[in-house]
């Protein structure tokens, strides 16, 4: 049976199309979910895509968190549903308190758009089990508010529990504390990542195929997961 992976569209989402395409290339069936519909339509996992939901008004992700679909996703994520938040999706996961910390304005104030090397540090999550520990991957980064911040106790806890999923290598594009590019929940089913794995799934359009690993990981995870 093909896994069904939901991709949410909020008003202002940009990368929902690419995320759905990455899901398809990885071998799963993408299911488009709508922000105003609380129903998850039986999906096995959810991707919150990049973009500027609700125009980034107030704070990035602050208003999307209250969308009807998010209330269902927050409950389902607490019950173990794999959820990947990319860029704006990461911001939404922090605002929804599924992940600790917050994403703030890039320290240099510039929007940063480039191909970025990341080191995958945690391969125990639902979204990174296809990688080797310490593997370096090349994935586009494009954000204006990607600077990850949390208090030192939270950062220490994330590191102690192996919840830093990926770090920037060869230059930190936004000033994120401890070069953090991606983190996970304590259960490992929720991952937030600032760079865009969905843009690195095909030779024609991406700098590598490294992003595909995030999507094939969740398929592996679902096969191993009890039904």
């Amino acid at each position, binding site marked *: 049976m093909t896994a069904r992976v939901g991709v949410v569209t909020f008003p202002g989402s940009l990368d929902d199309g690419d995320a759905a395409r990455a899901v398809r290339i990885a071998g799963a069936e993408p299911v488009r979910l709508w922000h105003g519909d609380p129903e998850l339509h039986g999906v096995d996992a959810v991707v919150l895509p990049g973009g500027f939901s609700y125009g980034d008004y*107030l704070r990035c992700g602050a208003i999307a968190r*209250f969308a009807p679909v998010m209330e269902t996703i927050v409950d389902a994520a607490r019950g173990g549903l794999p959820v990947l938040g990319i860029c704006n999706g990461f911001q939404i996961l922090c*605002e929804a308190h599924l992940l600790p910390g917050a994403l703030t304005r890039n*320290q*240099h*104030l510039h929007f940063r758009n480039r191909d970025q090397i990341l080191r995958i540090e945690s391969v125990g999550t639902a979204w990174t089990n296809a990688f080797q520990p310490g593997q370096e991957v090349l994935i586009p980064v494009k954000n204006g508010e990607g600077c990850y911040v949390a208090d030192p106790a939270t950062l220490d806890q994330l590191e102690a529990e192996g919840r830093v999923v990926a770090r920037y290598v060869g230059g930190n594009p936004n000033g994120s504390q401890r070069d953090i590019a991606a983190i996970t929940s304590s259960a490992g089913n929720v991952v937030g990542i600032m760079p865009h794995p969905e843009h690195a799934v095909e030779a024609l359009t991406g700098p590598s195929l490294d992003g595909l690993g995030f999507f094939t990981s969740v398929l592996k995870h679902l096969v191993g997961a009890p039904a």
Partner: protein
Amino acid sequence: MPRVVVDVMLKPEILDPQGQAVANALPRLGVSDVASVRIGRRIEIEFTGEPDLDRAREIADQLLANPVIEDFTVRLVEADETAGARP
């Protein structure tokens, strides 16, 4: 009708690059005696009935501010003190 004003500021330990950029521009105006600038957000709330500070605090805590990175204060002001009032 009095309004509730919510002031949201980044916590002191959170870097404020916007404030720094403004501070760095001041010498070009000939201003050399400003040590630092921090930028926040002011939100005015008008209730349909009596202004309710506790309710405003709840709104600020859950939506207007992100307590991970921001502090907020709430206070009552008379309508003619608010930013929208015309003299």
